[in-house]
C-alpha cells in the first residue's frame, strides 16, 4: 500500500471530516479555511502534501488535483486543496476537472464556509465583493 492509500485508510477510520491538503506549513490561509469550516460546525482534517507531486503541475491544477484527491479521502466526500496560488473545493462525486469552486488565497475564509455548506446542503455564501442576494430574512407585518 502506498502512503496515499494508507492515509485514505486512516481517514476512513477517523470521525467524518472534510479533508484539507496543502503544501508546506499551515499559515494564515489554512487558518482562514479552518475558521470557515469551524464557524459552520463541520470538522476538518489537515494533511500536508508532498511538494514533489504538486510542484510538477501548474499552480491551479495543483490545488484542483489536491482537492479532488482530498475529496476521495474524505468520509464526507468533500476536499480542499491549497497550493501556492489558489484554493480549491472539490467533491468526490464530481468530475476531477470540474471542481466546485476555486479562488485566490485571499478568499480562503469564504472557501472554508462553502466547503462546510457543501456537506450540509446549504446554498453557498456569496463570493466576497459580489453583490448580495436579496432577502436574507424578513419579519412579517400585520
Amino acid at each position, binding site marked *: 500500500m502506498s502512503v496515499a492509500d494508507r492515509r485514505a485508510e486512516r481517514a476512513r477510520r477517523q470521525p467524518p471530516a472534510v479533508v484539507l491538503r496543502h503544501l508546506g506549513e499551515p499559515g494564515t490561509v489554512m487558518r482562514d479555511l479552518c475558521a470557515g469550516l469551524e464557524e*459552520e460546525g463541520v470538522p476538518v482534517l489537515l494533511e500536508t502534501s508532498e511538494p514533489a507531486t504538486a510542484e510538477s503541475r501548474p499552480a491551479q491544477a495543483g490545488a484542483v488535483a489536491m482537492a479532488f484527491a482530498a475529496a476521495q479521502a474524505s468520509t464526507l466526500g468533500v476536499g480542499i486543496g491549497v497550493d501556492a496560488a489558489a484554493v480549491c473545493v472539490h467533491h468526490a462525486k464530481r*468530475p476531477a476537472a470540474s471542481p466546485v*469552486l476555486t479562488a485566490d488565497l485571499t478568499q480562503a475564509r469564504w472557501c472554508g464556509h462553502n466547503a462546510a455548506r457543501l456537506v450540509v446542503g446549504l446554498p453557498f455564501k456569496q463570493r466576497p465583493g459580489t453583490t448580495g442576494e436579496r432577502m*436574507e*430574512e424578513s*419579519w*412579517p*407585518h400585520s
Partner: protein
Amino acid sequence: MTAGRTARGDTATLVVGVDIGNSTTEACVAELGVDGPRYLGGALAPTSGVKGTAENVPGVVKVVHEALSAAGRSADELATVLVNEATPVISGLAMETITETIITESTMIGHNPDTPGGAGLGVGTTVAFAELADCPPGEPVVCVVGAGVDFEDAAAGIDAAVARGVAVTGAVVRADDANLIVNRLSTPIPVVDEVTLVEKVPLGMPAAVEVAEPGRTVRTLSNSYGIATLFELTPEQTRMVAPVARALVGNRSAVVVRTPHGDIADRRIPAGTLTLIGEHSTLSVGVDAGAEEIMATLRRVAPLSDATGESGTHVGGMLAAVRDAMTETLADAPDTHDSPDAHDAPDARTGGQDVRIQDILAVDTFVPQHVTGALAGEFALENAVALAAMVRTSRGPMEALAEQIRAALGTDVVVGGVEADMAVLGALTTPGTERPVAILDLGGGSTDAALAMPGGDVTSVHLAGAGDLVTKLIDSELGLENRELAEDIKRHPLAKSESFFHVRMEDGTARFFDEPLPADAFARVVVLGEEGMRPIPTRHSLEKIRQVRRSAKHKVFVVNAVRALERVAPGGNLREIGFVVVLGGSALDFEIPDLIAEAVAGSGIVCGTGNVRGSQGPRNAVATGLVAEHAAGPR
C-alpha cells in the same frame, strides 16, 4: 387531404377565423361544406401592437399564412378571412406600499445569521470590545466586537475580562465569527454575529442577547413580559416595547438594547385615495385601507362608471396612464363611434377624451423592504396594495383595420360577431359541454366571462386583473426585481437541487441526473422551465416560493372567477350555471384551472379547461367561434 376536398365537391369554401387578442393572435382554418365546417388546423402568434389598431396587421398576416400552410393549403384558395371585433383593452398595474417599519435608537437587532454562537440569554450593559479591559469587576456586560477584531483576540479578551470578575454575558459581533469565539471561551455565552452596522450599537446601555438552540426560536425577547422582566419595565414601558417583541417572533437570535426613546414603529404610510364613480353614487377610499375595503367600496358603487386616483400617487399615475393609452389608441380611429355594441355596459363610451375606467381589482400583497434604522440589514414584509385597472371600448376602429388586412392578404375580410358570442360558440366545441355554459377567458390583462343560456342569450363581463398581475405579485412578494424570472416561476414547478446528481421536486419525488448539476445551483431552489433548471437567486425556501406562487394565483384568478361568474349568473346564483369552460393563455397554467374548479365545486358546476374542437385545449375559441358563426349563415 385531396380526397377530403373532392368528397365535399367544389362547393366547399376555405375560410380563416382570426382572433386578435391583447397578447396573442389566433387563427382557425376551415372548409365550409354542405354539412357544416370541417376544421383543418390553426396557428397562433404574438399580437403585433395594441389590439384593435392597424399595428395588428403583420400579426394577422403571419397567423393566416401559418395556419394555411399547416393545413397544406395555399393563400389563393382562401375565400374569406373572418376577424373578431377586437375591441381594444388597456390595462394597468400599480402598487402602493402602505406600511413602513422604523427602528429608532438602534433598539434591536432582529436578523437571523446562519451561525450565531452559544445558546441562552445574556443581559448586561453594552461595552465596546476595546473598553472591556477597563470594566470594573462585578458588572454584567454585553460585549460589542467591531470590525477587524480577530476571533482569537476577541475570545482571549472576553476570557480575560471574565477572569477578572467581569460578567460578560453575551456578545454582538461584526464578522461571521460567533462560533469561533464561543468555541474558544472557557464558558460559552450567546453571540449574535454578522451585525453589519455593529458600530451603531449604543454603548453603555442595558441590553439583552438571546440565541436559541438550532431549529428553535427565541422565547424571552419575543415576549413583551420577558423583556419587561429583564429590564424591570413598568407597564407603560412594557406597552412601548411590545412591538419589539412582536418583530422578534420567529427569530433564532436577537438583541434588544434599552435606550431612553428606543422604539420600533409600524407606521402606516398614507397612500393616495381612489375615487370610485358609480352610476348612482361616488365614494372615495384610501388605498391604505386595504384591498378588502376597496373592493367593498367598489361593490357599493356598482356598476362602476369611472375611477380616478389621487394625482401624485402611484394609483393616480396608473389610472391616468391607462386612460391616456386608450385615448391615444382611439385617436387613431376615425370610426370609433360606429355601431355601439349592445352587449357592453352603457358606460363604456369611447368618444375622444371620454375614456372611462371600467373595473378595478385590488389585491393585498406585501413587499420585503429594508427596515429603516436596522443594524444588520433586516427586511420587513411591508403591506402593500396592488391594483389592476381596465379600460375597454365597446368597439374598436375595426373597419380601417379590416381594410388593411384585406389589402395585405388580397381576400375578402368580414368583421365577425360579438367577441363574447364567438368565444361561447368556440367553447361549445369542447366535448361534454352544453348550455347553460359560462366561459372564463383568463388572459394577461383582463379576466372575461360570458354566460350563454339555453335560449341563446349571452351576458358578458370584463374584469381587471389576470396573468400579468399574478406575475407582478410573484415578482414583488419574492423581491426578485426580475419579471421574466417571475413569469418562469408562475408557469413551472419548482425543485431543489440537493446534491450534484439529484433534485427534489416540489411534490417530494427525486430525480437523478447522470451529469453533475452546475455548482451554482447547489442547494438552491430552481424552477424547471422550458430551458432546463434555472436557479432562483434568493434564500426563500421552496415551500415559501410555492406558497407565494399559489396565493398570487388565488388572489387574482379565484377572486376574479367568482366575481365574474356572480356577475353573469342569473340572480348572481352560480347554481344556475351548468358548465364552466376555462379559456385563454392563463388556462394553460398547471394549477390555475384546478384552483378555480375547486372554488366553484361547491356550486354543482362542472368546471374544467376548455378543449376547443376537441383538440386545441383552451386556445382558439374565438377564432373557431367566428368560423362556426359564419358557417351557420346569417342569423
